[in-house]
């Protein structure tokens, strides 16, 4: 058998490499293909089980075919509607439609929440602690199912606040300190 050659016997290693059977190549090929097939199967089956449509509040409320189907929905949180039953860990809030295209997330969220005509959906999350990020005009991304009761029952609640990387606009200086009030 081959001598255990760690990192010392250079000549012997080269010899082994030269003598090595070329015919072994198919073993590598078959082995590699088997691994690729197995992982390919994993990814495809994982995709099939894990896939969720990512939709807007408009599509959710206008298309009844989403009822009972697990989907992800993105919307703007109306802070006045947030309620939290701390003893039973039930979070409820209403979120409103955010259009698919916008330039500034903070603006889009603000417009959505203040627009009375924007479509809205009540959301209910059970068993979760009230997240710190759940605040007025935050973007909520909820995963769950639309119930026949018209409430979206979410099992996952992700929140995004535009304040992280989107700078505030300096106009707020004037809003907070209107020029005429200055002394």
């Amino acid at each position: 058998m081959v001598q255990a050659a760690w990192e010392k016997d250079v000549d012997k290693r080269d010899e082994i490499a030269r003598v090595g059977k070329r015919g072994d190549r198919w073993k590598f090929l078959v082995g590699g293909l088997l691994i690729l097939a197995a992982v390919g199967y994993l990814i495809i089956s994982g995709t099939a089980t894990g896939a969720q449509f990512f939709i807007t509040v408009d599509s959710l409320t206008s298309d009844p075919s989403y009822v009972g189907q697990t989907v992800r929905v993105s919307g703007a949180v109306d802070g006045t509607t947030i309620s939290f039953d701390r003893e039973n860990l039930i979070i409820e809030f209403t979120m409103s439609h955010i259009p698919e295209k916008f330039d500034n997330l903070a603006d889009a969220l603000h417009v959505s929440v203040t627009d009375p005509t924007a479509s809205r959906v009540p959301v209910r999350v059970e068993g979760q602690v009230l997240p710190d990020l759940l605040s007025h005009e935050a973007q909520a991304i909820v995963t769950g199912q639309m119930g026949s009761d018209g409430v979206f029952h979410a099992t996952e609640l992700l929140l995004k606040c535009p304040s992280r990387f989107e700078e505030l606009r300096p106009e707020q200086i004037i809003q907070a300190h209107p020029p005429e009030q200055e002394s």
Partner: protein
Amino acid sequence: MLAEVGLASVFLAFVAALYAIVVSIYGAQTHSNKFVTSARNAAVLTFPLLLISAVALVTGLITEQYQMQYVWSTTSPDMPLIFRISALWGSQAGSILFWSLLMSAFTAAALLINWHSHRRLMPYVITYTMAVLAFFLGLTLFLENPFQRIWLVGSEVAQTTFIPAGAVPPSAAQLADTANGLNPLLRHFGMVIHPPMLYLGFVGFVIPFAFAMAALASGDLSTNWIKATRRYSLIAWLFLSLGLILGGRWAYDVLGWGGYWGWDPVENAAFLPWLMGTAFLHSVMIQEKRGMLKLWNMILVIGTFSAVIFGTFATRSGLVDSVHAFARSQIGFPMFFFWATVTLISSALILWRWNRGELRDEHAFTNILSRETLFVLNNLIFVLLFIAIFWGSFGAPVISELFLETEITLGVDYFNRVTPPLFLAMFVLMGVAPVSAWGATSLRRLGRAVTVPLMLTVGFIVLVIVFGVTQLEPIAAYAIVAFAGFVALHETFRGVRARVNGLKENWLQAMLALYARNRRRYGGYVVHLGIAIIGIGIIGSTVFQTGTQQTLAVGESLDINGYQMRFNGLEAGQISGDGRIMDIANVTVSRDGRTLANLRPRRDFFPTVTNGPNSMTIAGAYSTIENDFYVLLVGWEEINANNATFKVYINPLVNLVWWGGIVLILGTFIAAWPTETVPAYVRERSRGRRDKFAGAVA
């Protein structure tokens, strides 16, 4: 003044980088030493220049120059010093400047250290590093300028780099009152050091990438580029690992769901370069030892760098939440364009050299059971993990959006199904590869080498079962991961024993000598051990996490997993130095009647933060090697705080994740520690000089 100085030095650094690009290319074409040296000087100069602008920005942050828009939007008067400094990377404009600073530091070090030893690569290394730097400085100058100031022009507010006509600065009170401060969730020690760690990791991989590209461009396709950048790759890898672990720790401490990894696209974006980089660190060893995988290593180093740029692009452009968001951040399109250009140019260079037959391997793969084959398998697994995670976080959403007109995202279920088998395969290879030999290994030899680790693994499994784990799958997972760890330990032990028996050293001497003599191999084993420890921690804390929630009146207790937690009372409205109002629950954790700890889970409220989230839940935790008792204060009765609701998690073995991280740091230090501080040729030269000097004296 600060803003002008900062901006001017960014501009000068940008000019220096552009100059270095042009002159280094010209110098390489004309083989002119003078020009290449000049290009190097310009490239090195970017570091002090960027240091000046970073210091200017930090000075503005510390001294509360709220007229600077960046200072105004990231800090507020109530913030302590540490968060003022860390605000440098708290928002986009500052973090790009910080990124550039780190990058110029790495570049200057790599250029100065390798100047003599890798002369042929140098002009191209300058070109590539400076091209990357110039891109980021361009972003800073033209799109994300942290030195813009706020002015009042009549009744309008302007935000500009240069002073507009007729502008006056807003009053200090106006600015200070409206300054928003850092998102409270980011006011955590983990968040202070997590971003710089990640950036160092990202930036560090620019160096091996630039050297690889220099090798392709110059035609010096030996292992020179690998040798020159080995340490940079290791250090970059270390920082990337630390960044990931610290990010997990921050999530665990702050986000209050008892976990540390959620397969969120942003997390994945940082994990992807780690996977590629880890594959690269392993496969370059094959090229050094056997002259194989030359093409593959090039692909991996480009893949790593490409993943870094892609990750930065994806997280900064808004791509991750939704692909509609290309317009959301101004830097999205330039980043994408840069990423595509870098990837295309590098791929073209590889193809060119490949067609000329210059990337052919010196050996062929001959035996399935050889160390090089196992390394290749390891690479395959890493790349497949990369593909699976990339597909789940970016591929599926983007492709479905483009071609199906509806967006499909893959949730946590996908990752929990696809990644564990691949991770376990990685651990199997981590166990077997170190005991196999180059060229070929016999099964018998392999069997002999793993006997002791296998026996240890059996012992470990018995222990696991004694502690109450009965399901087959977790036991198998524990066994595989533990085996990899035991192999690392046993190989080190064998090395030490050989020295003790052969050289009659004592055990400590032998161990130190072993690490000194073969740093990479034995340091690598320590890293393997660290990863195995992390693996055990991940299995324990994800598979066996338990939790409960309960409302307790003062004096009442709850029971979970043999622990009792008694609610002693609530201290409401405590005001801290930085202005936050804390509501703190006082609880006592005990087990079998023995008091273990008093914990203070709390909820902080930031009254000064008017825009966005202004509260922060901070868990209390009692940690032992066995598990964490992790408690969150969910809510309380408003009026007299007679009762409060708690959520309690028991996270088995979670501390191994952090401790494994420390072992990993140690191992990387051993592997990356310089063996020879002064290169041989310098020592030679200085000795010559000394002799001459001695002669003159005589």
